[in-house]
């Protein structure tokens, strides 16, 4: 349902308010919850990017939210994973210890150091603003979330792990780092992953949230 209130997963840990505040700033109704029933009722969920993979997945599993999110994915309901939230859409991650993810998108999450060694001079965690270049968007017409996007602007990344999707077609945009193409936006139907923080990328990022609310 377009423009219905959006559920934001409340981990009880980290900065969750920014995502909600960003939606409110855009006059979009969004609420924090750890109740899978409320997520089901909302039919539209944002998984914010806080903490670390093992702890976050443990929370999702124990609260029943994992099952609900997987169920929403099967119904092709809109799901937006931000940063760690995007990583959890995948099958597994090696952050701290190998942990199973939601498995909605095939592929795994690995340390960025595997492909970008320290000898490149590039620091991890990668903290910084990067543009999503138009020519780096694999098929803009294909992307639900990048309509209306301002390709002259930059978005804010802060991460030490990156996703490695099995199917290249899910990658809608990447950014270049040390010669490596780091997935920035992945989409599988209405399941969307955003490696950067749209709620921390100024007006450019807010457009992503606006676009998500319209799905």
């Amino acid at each position, binding site marked *: 349902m377009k423009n219905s209130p959006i559920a934001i997963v409340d981990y009880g840990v980290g900065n969750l308010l*920014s995502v909600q*505040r960003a939606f409110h700033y855009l006059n979009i109704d969004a609420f924090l919850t750890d109740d899978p029933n409320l997520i089901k009722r909302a039919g539209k969920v944002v998984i914010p990017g806080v903490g*670390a993979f093992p702890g976050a997945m443990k929370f999702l599993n124990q609260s029943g939210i994992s099952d609900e999110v997987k169920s929403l994915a099967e119904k092709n309901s809109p799901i937006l994973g931000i940063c760690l939230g995007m990583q959890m859409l995948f099958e597994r991650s090696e952050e701290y210890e190998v942990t199973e993810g939601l498995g909605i998108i095939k592929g795994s999450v690995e340390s960025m150091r595997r492909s970008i060694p320290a000898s490149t001079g590039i*620091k991890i965690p990668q*903290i*910084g603003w990067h543009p999503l270049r138009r020519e780096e968007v694999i098929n803009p017409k294909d992307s639900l979330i990048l309509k209306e996007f301002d390709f002259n602007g*930059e978005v804010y990344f*802060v991460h*030490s792990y990156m996703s490695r999707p099995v199917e290249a077609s899910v990658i809608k945009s990447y950014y270049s780092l040390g010669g490596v193409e780091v997935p920035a936006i992945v989409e599988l139907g209405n399941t969307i992953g955003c490696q950067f923080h749209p709620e921390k990328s*100024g007006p450019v990022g807010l457009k992503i949230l606006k676009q998500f609310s319209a799905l």
Partner: protein
Amino acid sequence: MVKIGAFVMRFGKMLKPRLVARLDIKGENLIKGIQLEGLRVLGNPADFALTYYEQGFDELILMDAVASLYGRNNLLELISSISKNIFIPITVGGGIRNVDDIRNALRAGADKVAINTGAILNPDLIKAASEIFGSQSIVLSVEAKKSQSGKWEAYTHNGREPSGLDVLEWVKTGVELGAGEILVTSVDREGTRKGFDVELISELNNHIEVPIIASGGMGGIQHLLDIINIGKADAVAMADYIHYNRGNINEIKKSLAKAGINARH
């Protein structure tokens, strides 16, 4: 003078340095001091924060300058209110002593916490916090003062109390424990307008591989160029330079562009 050709060759696809507005706060006021002493009241922090966001700064750092007096961070209300209409990363510091303090700060709307005294008193806090909240949320804040030996000593309590710790060793420990970023304030240079401690940042870059935010000493654009090109700071925090309106972000970005350094649009 900076030679543009040489720097483009040497740094190639250099990543964009982050330009950070630093606000030191006492109670309800934005303050500014010289060498972390002698304070002047400048006005409402929320107004300054919003202005800097709208002007195009990349991040904000909010430091509670009197937290050590009360033993806790008092900025929760401020963070809460400014995060309603400011959508860039916010780091908060001052008086962060335990996991609950961090939880509360992040819950109020901060993205990262900067920890100085709390980490020196209890280094395990960094380890515990990075495991719960993620390394990227934990910034090790260091106040560095050059000692007679030529090395730098870490200070606490706004540059007043020597800790006995060597900065380079301490920062290395902090990163091993899980700090995702280092905020380095030069006690010697802070508020002097004489330039950053380029040597310090450069040395730190030889010791650790996480991003470094340099703070303290900006008097003019050349200082900024030096700390980026020579010190290789990943981010630069400005306070005095912007609060007194002696420079603004647009001029700064133009000057960087002229020197071949790209900042965020």
